[in-house]
Protein backbone atom coordinates (compact mmCIF):
# COMPACT_ATOMS: atom_id res chain seq x y z
CA UNK A 1 0.00 0.00 0.00
CA UNK A 2 2.68 2.46 1.00
CA UNK A 3 4.49 1.61 -2.24
CA UNK A 4 1.42 2.55 -4.24
CA UNK A 5 1.20 5.87 -2.44
CA UNK A 6 4.91 6.40 -2.98
CA UNK A 7 4.51 5.69 -6.70
CA UNK A 8 1.62 8.09 -7.00
CA UNK A 9 3.59 10.79 -5.20
CA UNK A 10 6.53 10.21 -7.51
CA UNK A 11 4.28 10.39 -10.56
CA UNK A 12 2.90 13.73 -9.46
CA UNK A 13 6.34 15.04 -8.51
CA UNK A 14 7.77 14.00 -11.86
CA UNK A 15 4.96 14.75 -14.29
CA UNK A 16 3.70 17.90 -12.68
CA UNK A 17 6.66 19.48 -10.94
CA UNK A 18 9.69 17.80 -12.53
CA UNK A 19 11.30 17.42 -9.13
CA UNK A 20 12.84 14.05 -9.81
CA UNK A 21 15.35 14.87 -12.54
CA UNK A 22 18.21 14.43 -10.07
CA UNK A 23 17.03 10.96 -9.09
CA UNK A 24 16.61 10.09 -12.73
CA UNK A 25 20.11 11.22 -13.59
CA UNK A 26 21.63 9.39 -10.66
CA UNK A 27 19.86 6.14 -11.39
CA UNK A 28 20.65 6.49 -15.09
CA UNK A 29 24.26 5.79 -14.14
CA UNK A 30 23.07 2.31 -13.12
CA UNK A 31 20.85 1.74 -16.13
CA UNK A 32 23.19 3.11 -18.78
CA UNK A 33 25.54 0.07 -18.98
CA UNK A 34 22.52 -2.22 -19.16
CA UNK A 35 21.06 -0.12 -21.94
CA UNK A 36 24.32 -0.33 -23.83
CA UNK A 37 24.25 -4.11 -23.51
CA UNK A 38 20.62 -4.21 -24.63
CA UNK A 39 21.28 -1.97 -27.61
CA UNK A 40 24.34 -3.96 -28.71
CA UNK A 41 22.44 -6.34 -31.04
CA UNK A 42 20.68 -3.41 -32.70
CA UNK A 43 24.01 -1.61 -33.11
CA UNK A 44 25.52 -4.72 -34.62
CA UNK A 45 22.63 -5.14 -37.03
CA UNK A 46 22.88 -1.53 -38.08
CA UNK A 47 26.62 -1.56 -38.66
CA UNK A 48 26.28 -4.86 -40.53
CA UNK A 49 23.61 -3.45 -42.80
CA UNK A 50 25.79 -0.41 -43.49
CA UNK A 51 28.74 -2.68 -44.16
CA UNK A 52 26.84 -4.88 -46.56
CA UNK A 53 24.96 -2.00 -48.18
CA UNK A 54 25.40 -2.37 -51.89
CA UNK A 55 28.13 -0.47 -53.63
CA UNK A 56 25.64 0.99 -56.07
CA UNK A 57 23.56 2.70 -53.46
CA UNK A 58 26.65 4.08 -51.76
CA UNK A 59 27.92 5.43 -55.06
CA UNK A 60 24.58 7.04 -55.80
CA UNK A 61 24.51 8.58 -52.36
CA UNK A 62 28.07 9.78 -52.80
CA UNK A 63 27.25 11.46 -56.12
CA UNK A 64 24.22 13.11 -54.54
CA UNK A 65 26.31 14.36 -51.63
CA UNK A 66 28.98 15.75 -53.94
CA UNK A 67 26.36 17.58 -55.95
CA UNK A 68 24.90 19.02 -52.77
CA UNK A 69 28.31 19.99 -51.49
CA UNK A 70 29.10 22.00 -54.62
CA UNK A 71 25.68 23.61 -54.44
CA UNK A 72 26.03 24.51 -50.82
CA UNK A 73 29.67 25.57 -50.99
CA UNK A 74 28.86 28.71 -52.89
CA UNK A 75 25.87 29.38 -50.65
CA UNK A 76 28.19 29.06 -47.69
CA UNK A 77 30.67 31.50 -49.19
CA UNK A 78 27.90 33.99 -49.66
CA UNK A 79 26.57 33.23 -46.21
CA UNK A 80 29.86 34.15 -44.55
CA UNK A 81 29.90 37.41 -46.40
CA UNK A 82 26.25 38.18 -45.68
CA UNK A 83 26.70 37.38 -42.01
CA UNK A 84 29.67 39.75 -41.79
CA UNK A 85 27.68 42.40 -43.51
CA UNK A 86 24.74 41.79 -41.19
CA UNK A 87 26.99 42.11 -38.16
CA UNK A 88 28.43 45.38 -39.42
CA UNK A 89 25.00 46.78 -40.14
CA UNK A 90 23.79 45.75 -36.72
CA UNK A 91 26.82 47.44 -35.23
CA UNK A 92 26.09 50.59 -37.17
CA UNK A 93 22.48 50.60 -36.00
CA UNK A 94 23.46 49.76 -32.45
CA UNK A 95 21.26 46.69 -32.42
CA UNK A 96 21.86 43.57 -30.39
CA UNK A 97 24.02 41.02 -32.14
CA UNK A 98 22.26 38.09 -33.70
CA UNK A 99 22.16 34.94 -31.64
CA UNK A 100 25.35 32.89 -31.69
CA UNK A 101 24.81 29.18 -31.73
CA UNK A 102 26.81 26.11 -30.92
CA UNK A 103 26.24 22.80 -32.58
CA UNK A 104 26.92 19.15 -31.86
CA UNK A 105 26.48 16.52 -34.56
CA UNK A 106 24.83 13.36 -33.28
CA UNK A 107 23.23 10.16 -34.39
CA UNK A 108 19.83 8.79 -33.46
CA UNK A 109 20.42 5.55 -31.59
CA UNK A 110 16.85 4.35 -31.31
CA UNK A 111 13.29 5.33 -30.53
CA UNK A 112 12.66 5.62 -26.82
CA UNK A 113 10.66 2.52 -25.85
CA UNK A 114 7.97 4.53 -24.07
CA UNK A 115 4.92 4.05 -26.32
CA UNK A 116 3.04 7.03 -24.91
CA UNK A 117 5.35 9.66 -26.28
CA UNK A 118 7.41 10.27 -29.39
CA UNK A 119 11.01 10.48 -28.32
CA UNK A 120 14.35 9.34 -29.66
CA UNK A 121 17.70 8.80 -28.01
CA UNK A 122 20.88 10.39 -29.38
CA UNK A 123 24.40 9.07 -28.97
CA UNK A 124 25.76 12.35 -27.55
CA UNK A 125 25.02 13.83 -24.20
CA UNK A 126 25.86 16.44 -21.62
CA UNK A 127 29.52 15.45 -21.85
CA UNK A 128 29.54 16.75 -25.43
CA UNK A 129 28.01 20.05 -24.44
CA UNK A 130 24.36 19.24 -25.05
CA UNK A 131 21.92 20.78 -22.62
CA UNK A 132 18.23 20.18 -22.31
CA UNK A 133 16.31 22.70 -24.35
CA UNK A 134 18.58 22.58 -27.40
CA UNK A 135 16.96 22.31 -30.81
CA UNK A 136 17.52 19.13 -32.78
CA UNK A 137 17.40 19.32 -36.56
CA UNK A 138 18.18 17.25 -39.58
CA UNK A 139 19.19 18.48 -43.02
CA UNK A 140 15.76 19.92 -43.81
CA UNK A 141 14.43 21.32 -40.58
CA UNK A 142 13.82 21.12 -36.85
CA UNK A 143 12.72 17.68 -35.72
CA UNK A 144 12.52 18.14 -31.97
CA UNK A 145 14.00 19.38 -28.77
CA UNK A 146 16.49 17.86 -26.37
CA UNK A 147 14.45 17.37 -23.22
CA UNK A 148 16.86 15.41 -21.06
CA UNK A 149 20.60 15.41 -21.38
CA UNK A 150 22.16 12.38 -19.74
CA UNK A 151 25.96 12.23 -19.50
CA UNK A 152 26.40 10.15 -22.66
CA UNK A 153 22.96 10.24 -24.24
CA UNK A 154 20.26 12.74 -24.97
CA UNK A 155 16.54 12.21 -24.98
CA UNK A 156 14.86 14.19 -27.74
CA UNK A 157 11.14 14.90 -27.72
CA UNK A 158 10.02 15.03 -31.32
CA UNK A 159 7.89 17.87 -32.62
CA UNK A 160 5.08 15.43 -33.27
CA UNK A 161 4.84 14.41 -29.61
CA UNK A 162 1.45 15.36 -28.21
CA UNK A 163 1.43 18.99 -27.09
CA UNK A 164 5.14 19.49 -27.67
CA UNK A 165 5.31 23.19 -28.44
CA UNK A 166 7.70 25.35 -30.40
CA UNK A 167 7.62 29.13 -30.83
CA UNK A 168 7.50 29.92 -34.53
CA UNK A 169 6.77 32.70 -36.94
CA UNK A 170 5.53 32.66 -40.49
CA UNK A 171 8.59 33.24 -42.67
CA UNK A 172 6.62 35.26 -45.22
CA UNK A 173 5.27 37.95 -42.89
CA UNK A 174 6.71 37.39 -39.42
CA UNK A 175 3.37 36.49 -37.82
CA UNK A 176 4.20 34.78 -34.54
CA UNK A 177 2.58 31.73 -33.04
CA UNK A 178 3.13 28.50 -31.21
CA UNK A 179 3.16 25.20 -33.04
CA UNK A 180 1.95 22.10 -31.22
CA UNK A 181 2.34 18.42 -31.95
CA UNK A 182 -0.90 16.50 -32.34
CA UNK A 183 0.49 13.16 -31.27
CA UNK A 184 -0.39 11.55 -34.60
CA UNK A 185 2.48 12.79 -36.74
CA UNK A 186 1.00 16.13 -37.74
CA UNK A 187 1.44 19.58 -36.27
CA UNK A 188 -1.09 22.28 -35.51
CA UNK A 189 -0.60 26.02 -35.28
CA UNK A 190 -3.00 27.01 -32.52
CA UNK A 191 -4.57 30.25 -31.35
CA UNK A 192 -4.16 32.20 -34.55
CA UNK A 193 -7.24 34.44 -34.83
CA UNK A 194 -9.50 34.28 -37.85
CA UNK A 195 -8.47 36.86 -40.41
CA UNK A 196 -4.75 36.42 -39.81
CA UNK A 197 -2.57 36.20 -42.86
CA UNK A 198 -1.68 32.52 -43.04
CA UNK A 199 -1.85 30.62 -46.32
CA UNK A 200 -1.40 27.04 -47.36
CA UNK A 201 2.24 26.54 -48.28
CA UNK A 202 3.59 29.13 -45.84
CA UNK A 203 6.87 28.14 -44.29
CA UNK A 204 7.18 28.37 -40.51
CA UNK A 205 10.54 29.11 -38.90
CA UNK A 206 11.61 29.32 -35.27
CA UNK A 207 11.11 32.77 -33.83
CA UNK A 208 13.66 32.46 -31.05
CA UNK A 209 11.30 34.37 -28.77
CA UNK A 210 11.24 31.43 -26.40
CA UNK A 211 14.80 32.27 -25.43
CA UNK A 212 15.71 28.66 -26.03
CA UNK A 213 15.80 28.01 -29.76
CA UNK A 214 18.09 29.66 -32.24
CA UNK A 215 15.93 31.90 -34.47
CA UNK A 216 15.14 31.24 -38.14
CA UNK A 217 15.45 27.47 -38.31
CA UNK A 218 12.95 25.96 -40.76
CA UNK A 219 10.25 24.00 -38.91
CA UNK A 220 7.12 23.21 -40.90
CA UNK A 221 4.91 24.04 -43.83
CA UNK A 222 1.20 24.88 -43.63
CA UNK A 223 -0.93 22.20 -45.29
CA UNK A 224 -4.44 23.38 -44.55
CA UNK A 225 -6.15 26.42 -43.12
CA UNK A 226 -9.81 26.23 -42.09
CA UNK A 227 -11.72 28.62 -39.89
CA UNK A 228 -13.11 27.19 -36.65
CA UNK A 229 -14.84 29.14 -33.87
CA UNK A 230 -12.63 32.06 -32.95
CA UNK A 231 -9.40 30.74 -34.35
CA UNK A 232 -8.07 29.28 -37.53
CA UNK A 233 -7.45 25.56 -37.60
CA UNK A 234 -4.03 25.37 -39.20
CA UNK A 235 -2.55 21.98 -39.91
CA UNK A 236 1.13 21.77 -40.77
CA UNK A 237 3.60 19.14 -41.78
CA UNK A 238 7.15 19.16 -40.45
CA UNK A 239 9.91 19.98 -42.92
CA UNK A 240 12.46 17.74 -41.20
CA UNK A 241 12.16 13.97 -41.36
CA UNK A 242 10.88 13.91 -37.82
CA UNK A 243 10.27 10.21 -37.44
CA UNK A 244 13.00 8.98 -39.78
CA UNK A 245 16.04 11.17 -39.19
CA UNK A 246 19.27 9.37 -38.35
CA UNK A 247 21.96 12.04 -38.56
CA UNK A 248 21.03 15.14 -36.64
CA UNK A 249 22.51 18.38 -35.43
CA UNK A 250 21.89 19.57 -31.89
CA UNK A 251 21.86 23.34 -31.92
CA UNK A 252 21.74 25.63 -28.93
CA UNK A 253 22.39 29.19 -27.99
CA UNK A 254 26.01 29.88 -27.17
CA UNK A 255 24.92 32.18 -24.37
CA UNK A 256 21.65 32.18 -22.47
CA UNK A 257 18.93 34.53 -23.55
CA UNK A 258 18.79 37.84 -21.69
CA UNK A 259 16.79 37.55 -18.47
CA UNK A 260 13.19 38.55 -18.50
CA UNK A 261 12.50 41.91 -16.96
CA UNK A 262 11.11 41.84 -13.45
CA UNK A 263 7.36 42.40 -13.75
CA UNK A 264 7.33 44.23 -10.44
CA UNK A 265 9.48 46.98 -11.93
CA UNK A 266 7.23 47.41 -14.96
CA UNK A 267 5.91 50.91 -15.41
CA UNK A 268 2.15 51.00 -15.75
CA UNK A 269 1.22 52.77 -18.96
CA UNK A 270 -0.76 55.93 -18.27
CA UNK A 271 -4.46 55.28 -18.28
CA UNK A 272 -5.24 57.81 -21.01
CA UNK A 273 -3.37 55.75 -23.53
CA UNK A 274 -5.52 52.75 -22.90
CA UNK A 275 -8.98 54.21 -22.60
CA UNK A 276 -10.60 57.50 -23.35
CA UNK A 277 -10.75 59.11 -19.90
CA UNK A 278 -13.99 58.60 -18.04
CA UNK A 279 -14.86 61.55 -15.88
CA UNK A 280 -16.79 59.60 -13.20
CA UNK A 281 -14.54 56.79 -12.15
CA UNK A 282 -13.67 56.07 -8.54
CA UNK A 283 -10.06 55.06 -7.85
CA UNK A 284 -11.02 51.47 -7.01
CA UNK A 285 -13.07 51.11 -10.15
CA UNK A 286 -10.28 52.69 -12.12
CA UNK A 287 -7.89 50.09 -10.90
CA UNK A 288 -10.23 47.33 -11.91
CA UNK A 289 -10.89 49.02 -15.20
CA UNK A 290 -7.27 49.36 -16.04
CA UNK A 291 -6.58 45.70 -15.65
CA UNK A 292 -9.65 44.78 -17.59
CA UNK A 293 -8.87 47.17 -20.36
CA UNK A 294 -5.31 46.07 -20.45
CA UNK A 295 -6.35 42.54 -21.03
CA UNK A 296 -8.85 43.64 -23.62
CA UNK A 297 -6.21 45.71 -25.25
CA UNK A 298 -3.82 42.81 -25.26
CA UNK A 299 -6.49 40.74 -26.90
CA UNK A 300 -7.10 43.41 -29.45
CA UNK A 301 -3.51 43.78 -30.43
CA UNK A 302 -3.33 40.04 -30.54
CA UNK A 303 -6.26 39.94 -32.92
CA UNK A 304 -4.85 42.59 -35.14
CA UNK A 305 -1.45 41.07 -34.85
CA UNK A 306 -0.93 40.63 -38.54
CA UNK A 307 -0.01 44.19 -39.45
CA UNK A 308 1.88 44.82 -36.24
CA UNK A 309 3.83 41.64 -36.60
CA UNK A 310 4.47 42.50 -40.20
CA UNK A 311 6.20 45.69 -39.39
CA UNK A 312 8.24 44.08 -36.68
CA UNK A 313 9.32 41.33 -38.95
CA UNK A 314 12.38 39.55 -37.71
CA UNK A 315 12.92 41.87 -34.80
CA UNK A 316 12.15 40.36 -31.45
CA UNK A 317 10.15 42.51 -29.07
CA UNK A 318 11.97 42.84 -25.79
CA UNK A 319 9.31 43.97 -23.38
CA UNK A 320 6.85 41.56 -21.88
CA UNK A 321 4.07 43.95 -22.70
CA UNK A 322 4.56 43.56 -26.41
CA UNK A 323 1.63 41.97 -28.14
CA UNK A 324 1.04 38.51 -26.78
CA UNK A 325 0.08 36.03 -29.49
CA UNK A 326 -2.10 33.81 -27.52
CA UNK A 327 -5.44 34.11 -25.85
CA UNK A 328 -3.95 32.40 -22.82
CA UNK A 329 -2.05 35.58 -22.23
CA UNK A 330 -5.30 37.42 -21.80
CA UNK A 331 -5.91 35.45 -18.69
CA UNK A 332 -2.39 36.14 -17.55
CA UNK A 333 -2.87 39.84 -18.05
CA UNK A 334 -5.96 39.71 -15.92
CA UNK A 335 -4.06 37.92 -13.20
CA UNK A 336 -1.41 40.54 -13.08
CA UNK A 337 -2.64 42.84 -10.33
CA UNK A 338 -3.53 39.91 -8.12
CA UNK A 339 -0.07 38.46 -8.39
CA UNK A 340 1.49 41.74 -7.41
CA UNK A 341 -0.61 41.95 -4.30
CA UNK A 342 0.36 38.45 -3.30
CA UNK A 343 4.01 39.33 -3.90
CA UNK A 344 4.93 35.71 -3.19
CA UNK A 345 7.84 34.40 -5.22
CA UNK A 346 5.68 31.91 -7.03
CA UNK A 347 3.14 34.52 -7.98
CA UNK A 348 5.89 36.72 -9.29
CA UNK A 349 7.37 33.98 -11.35
CA UNK A 350 4.06 33.02 -12.87
CA UNK A 351 3.50 36.70 -13.50
CA UNK A 352 6.43 36.85 -15.82
CA UNK A 353 4.22 35.13 -18.28
CA UNK A 354 3.38 37.05 -21.46
CA UNK A 355 6.80 36.72 -23.05
CA UNK A 356 7.72 33.84 -20.84
CA UNK A 357 4.67 31.83 -21.78
CA UNK A 358 6.15 30.95 -25.08
CA UNK A 359 9.51 30.20 -23.64
CA UNK A 360 8.07 27.95 -21.06
CA UNK A 361 5.85 26.17 -23.49
CA UNK A 362 8.49 25.60 -26.05
CA UNK A 363 10.78 24.43 -23.32
CA UNK A 364 8.44 22.03 -21.72
CA UNK A 365 5.19 20.44 -22.48
CA UNK A 366 2.32 22.66 -21.59
CA UNK A 367 0.54 19.82 -19.88
CA UNK A 368 2.87 20.40 -17.00
CA UNK A 369 1.25 23.77 -16.80
CA UNK A 370 2.00 27.15 -15.46
CA UNK A 371 3.74 27.08 -12.13
CA UNK A 372 6.27 24.39 -12.90
CA UNK A 373 7.56 25.74 -16.15
CA UNK A 374 9.55 28.89 -15.84
CA UNK A 375 11.11 27.74 -12.62
CA UNK A 376 12.88 24.95 -14.44
CA UNK A 377 14.59 27.10 -17.03
Amino acid at each position, binding site marked *: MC*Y*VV*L*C*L*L*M*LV*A*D*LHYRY*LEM*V*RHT*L*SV*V*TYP*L*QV*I*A*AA*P*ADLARSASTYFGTLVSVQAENAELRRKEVEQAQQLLRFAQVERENQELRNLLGMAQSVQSRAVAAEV*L*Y*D*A*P*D*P*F*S*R*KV*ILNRGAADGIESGFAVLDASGVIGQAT*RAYPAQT*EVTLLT*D*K*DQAIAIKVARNGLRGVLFGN*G*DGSLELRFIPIGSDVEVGDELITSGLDGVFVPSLPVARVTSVTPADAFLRIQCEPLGHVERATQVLVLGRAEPAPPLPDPASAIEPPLEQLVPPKPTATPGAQDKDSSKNKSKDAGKTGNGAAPAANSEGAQAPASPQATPDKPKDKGKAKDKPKGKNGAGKKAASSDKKPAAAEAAEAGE*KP*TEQPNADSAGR
Partner: protein
Amino acid sequence: MQSTNLSDRILRPPQPWFIDASLLVALILSYIPVSRLAGWPDWMALTLCFWSIRQPQLVGLDKAFLLGLLVDIGHGAAMGQYALAYVLLSHMAHTFARRILWFPPRQQALHILPMLFITQVVMTVVRLIAGDSFPGWTYFLAPITGALLWPALSLLLLWPQYQPEDRDDHRPI
Protein backbone atom coordinates in the same frame (compact mmCIF):
# COMPACT_ATOMS: atom_id res chain seq x y z
CA MET B 1 8.25 -23.73 -2.93
CA GLN B 2 4.53 -24.00 -2.74
CA SER B 3 2.58 -27.16 -3.26
CA THR B 4 0.96 -27.92 -6.56
CA ASN B 5 -1.42 -30.70 -7.42
CA LEU B 6 0.47 -31.90 -10.42
CA SER B 7 4.06 -31.92 -9.34
CA ASP B 8 5.14 -35.46 -8.82
CA ARG B 9 8.62 -34.46 -7.84
CA ILE B 10 10.09 -32.35 -5.14
CA LEU B 11 11.88 -29.32 -6.54
CA ARG B 12 15.17 -28.12 -5.18
CA PRO B 13 15.06 -24.84 -3.32
CA PRO B 14 15.73 -21.85 -5.56
CA GLN B 15 19.05 -20.09 -5.50
CA PRO B 16 18.59 -16.40 -4.63
CA TRP B 17 21.37 -15.46 -7.04
CA PHE B 18 19.52 -17.19 -9.85
CA ILE B 19 16.40 -15.17 -9.13
CA ASP B 20 18.38 -11.94 -9.11
CA ALA B 21 20.21 -12.92 -12.29
CA SER B 22 16.97 -13.73 -14.08
CA LEU B 23 15.51 -10.39 -13.03
CA LEU B 24 18.64 -8.64 -14.33
CA VAL B 25 18.38 -10.45 -17.66
CA ALA B 26 14.72 -9.48 -17.85
CA LEU B 27 15.70 -5.86 -17.20
CA ILE B 28 18.21 -5.96 -20.04
CA LEU B 29 15.62 -7.60 -22.31
CA SER B 30 13.17 -4.84 -21.48
CA TYR B 31 15.77 -2.26 -22.52
CA ILE B 32 16.16 -3.72 -26.01
CA PRO B 33 15.13 -0.94 -28.38
CA VAL B 34 12.49 -2.61 -30.53
CA SER B 35 10.91 0.60 -31.82
CA ARG B 36 7.50 -0.10 -30.37
CA LEU B 37 7.21 -3.49 -31.97
CA ALA B 38 3.60 -4.52 -31.42
CA GLY B 39 3.30 -7.45 -29.08
CA TRP B 40 6.83 -7.31 -27.70
CA PRO B 41 6.29 -8.82 -24.26
CA ASP B 42 7.10 -6.99 -21.07
CA TRP B 43 9.86 -9.33 -19.91
CA MET B 44 10.27 -7.60 -16.61
CA ALA B 45 6.59 -7.97 -15.75
CA LEU B 46 6.61 -11.64 -16.75
CA THR B 47 9.69 -12.55 -14.73
CA LEU B 48 8.62 -10.49 -11.75
CA CYS B 49 5.19 -12.08 -11.85
CA PHE B 50 6.72 -15.53 -12.04
CA TRP B 51 8.94 -15.09 -9.00
CA SER B 52 6.24 -13.25 -7.07
CA ILE B 53 4.04 -16.31 -7.51
CA ARG B 54 6.72 -18.90 -6.86
CA GLN B 55 8.80 -17.19 -4.20
CA PRO B 56 6.74 -14.45 -2.56
CA GLN B 57 9.10 -14.39 0.39
CA LEU B 58 12.11 -13.65 -1.81
CA VAL B 59 10.57 -11.31 -4.37
CA GLY B 60 8.39 -8.76 -2.68
CA LEU B 61 6.95 -5.37 -3.38
CA ASP B 62 10.27 -3.67 -2.65
CA LYS B 63 11.98 -5.42 -5.53
CA ALA B 64 9.01 -4.73 -7.79
CA PHE B 65 9.20 -1.06 -6.91
CA LEU B 66 12.94 -0.76 -7.47
CA LEU B 67 12.90 -2.65 -10.76
CA GLY B 68 9.92 -0.59 -11.87
CA LEU B 69 11.92 2.57 -11.28
CA LEU B 70 14.84 1.23 -13.30
CA VAL B 71 12.52 0.37 -16.18
CA ASP B 72 10.98 3.85 -15.93
CA ILE B 73 14.35 5.46 -16.31
CA GLY B 74 15.52 3.19 -19.10
CA HIS B 75 12.33 3.76 -21.05
CA GLY B 76 12.22 7.48 -20.47
CA ALA B 77 8.75 7.00 -18.99
CA ALA B 78 7.29 8.96 -16.11
CA MET B 79 9.01 8.18 -12.83
CA GLY B 80 6.80 5.79 -10.93
CA GLN B 81 4.76 4.60 -13.90
CA TYR B 82 6.23 1.14 -14.18
CA ALA B 83 6.96 1.09 -10.46
CA LEU B 84 3.26 1.50 -9.74
CA ALA B 85 2.27 -1.10 -12.30
CA TYR B 86 4.81 -3.64 -11.04
CA VAL B 87 3.94 -3.10 -7.40
CA LEU B 88 0.29 -3.78 -8.24
CA LEU B 89 1.28 -6.78 -10.35
CA SER B 90 3.45 -8.18 -7.60
CA HIS B 91 0.67 -7.68 -5.09
CA MET B 92 -1.83 -9.46 -7.31
CA ALA B 93 0.64 -12.28 -7.82
CA HIS B 94 1.11 -12.67 -4.06
CA THR B 95 -2.62 -12.68 -3.54
CA PHE B 96 -3.40 -15.29 -6.18
CA ALA B 97 -0.21 -17.35 -5.86
CA ARG B 98 -1.81 -20.31 -4.07
CA ARG B 99 -4.67 -20.47 -6.52
CA ILE B 100 -2.52 -20.10 -9.62
CA LEU B 101 -0.02 -22.76 -8.61
CA TRP B 102 -2.85 -25.24 -8.42
CA PHE B 103 -3.12 -25.19 -12.21
CA PRO B 104 -0.87 -26.60 -14.91
CA PRO B 105 1.23 -24.00 -16.80
CA ARG B 106 -1.20 -23.41 -19.67
CA GLN B 107 -4.05 -22.66 -17.34
CA GLN B 108 -1.72 -20.55 -15.24
CA ALA B 109 -1.20 -18.47 -18.39
CA LEU B 110 -4.93 -17.74 -18.42
CA HIS B 111 -4.56 -16.26 -14.95
CA ILE B 112 -1.47 -14.31 -15.91
CA LEU B 113 -3.16 -12.70 -18.90
CA PRO B 114 -5.60 -10.48 -16.95
CA MET B 115 -2.88 -9.55 -14.48
CA LEU B 116 -0.56 -8.36 -17.24
CA PHE B 117 -3.48 -6.64 -18.88
CA ILE B 118 -4.29 -4.75 -15.70
CA THR B 119 -0.70 -3.50 -15.39
CA GLN B 120 -0.91 -2.11 -18.91
CA VAL B 121 -4.25 -0.49 -18.27
CA VAL B 122 -2.86 1.13 -15.12
CA MET B 123 0.07 2.56 -17.06
CA THR B 124 -2.19 3.77 -19.86
CA VAL B 125 -4.50 5.50 -17.42
CA VAL B 126 -1.59 7.17 -15.66
CA ARG B 127 -0.15 8.51 -18.90
CA LEU B 128 -3.47 9.57 -20.35
CA ILE B 129 -4.17 11.55 -17.18
CA ALA B 130 -0.75 13.12 -17.60
CA GLY B 131 -1.83 14.25 -21.07
CA ASP B 132 0.13 11.91 -23.31
CA SER B 133 -1.21 10.40 -26.47
CA PHE B 134 -2.94 7.03 -26.67
CA PRO B 135 -0.46 4.45 -27.97
CA GLY B 136 -2.98 2.53 -30.06
CA TRP B 137 -4.69 -0.79 -29.45
CA THR B 138 -1.66 -2.81 -30.54
CA TYR B 139 -0.15 -1.77 -27.21
CA PHE B 140 -2.44 -4.32 -25.58
CA LEU B 141 -1.02 -7.20 -27.61
CA ALA B 142 1.91 -7.40 -25.21
CA PRO B 143 -0.03 -9.18 -22.41
CA ILE B 144 -1.21 -11.79 -24.93
CA THR B 145 2.28 -12.66 -26.14
CA GLY B 146 3.40 -12.56 -22.53
CA ALA B 147 0.75 -15.09 -21.53
CA LEU B 148 1.63 -17.28 -24.52
CA LEU B 149 5.25 -17.33 -23.37
CA TRP B 150 4.33 -18.22 -19.82
CA PRO B 151 4.61 -22.05 -20.03
CA ALA B 152 8.00 -21.85 -21.72
CA LEU B 153 9.19 -19.26 -19.25
CA SER B 154 8.06 -21.37 -16.30
CA LEU B 155 10.03 -24.32 -17.62
CA LEU B 156 13.11 -22.19 -18.20
CA LEU B 157 13.10 -20.47 -14.82
CA LEU B 158 12.41 -23.70 -12.93
CA TRP B 159 15.12 -25.57 -14.81
CA PRO B 160 17.78 -25.27 -12.07
CA GLN B 161 15.27 -26.52 -9.54
CA TYR B 162 14.46 -29.55 -11.66
CA GLN B 163 18.07 -30.74 -11.47
CA PRO B 164 18.61 -33.72 -9.17
CA GLU B 165 20.39 -33.14 -5.89
CA ASP B 166 23.26 -35.43 -6.76
CA ARG B 167 23.66 -36.40 -10.36
CA ASP B 168 24.05 -40.12 -10.94
CA ASP B 169 24.94 -40.93 -14.54
CA HIS B 170 23.86 -44.54 -14.12
CA ARG B 171 20.39 -43.61 -12.99
CA PRO B 172 17.91 -42.71 -15.72
CA ILE B 173 16.34 -39.46 -14.48
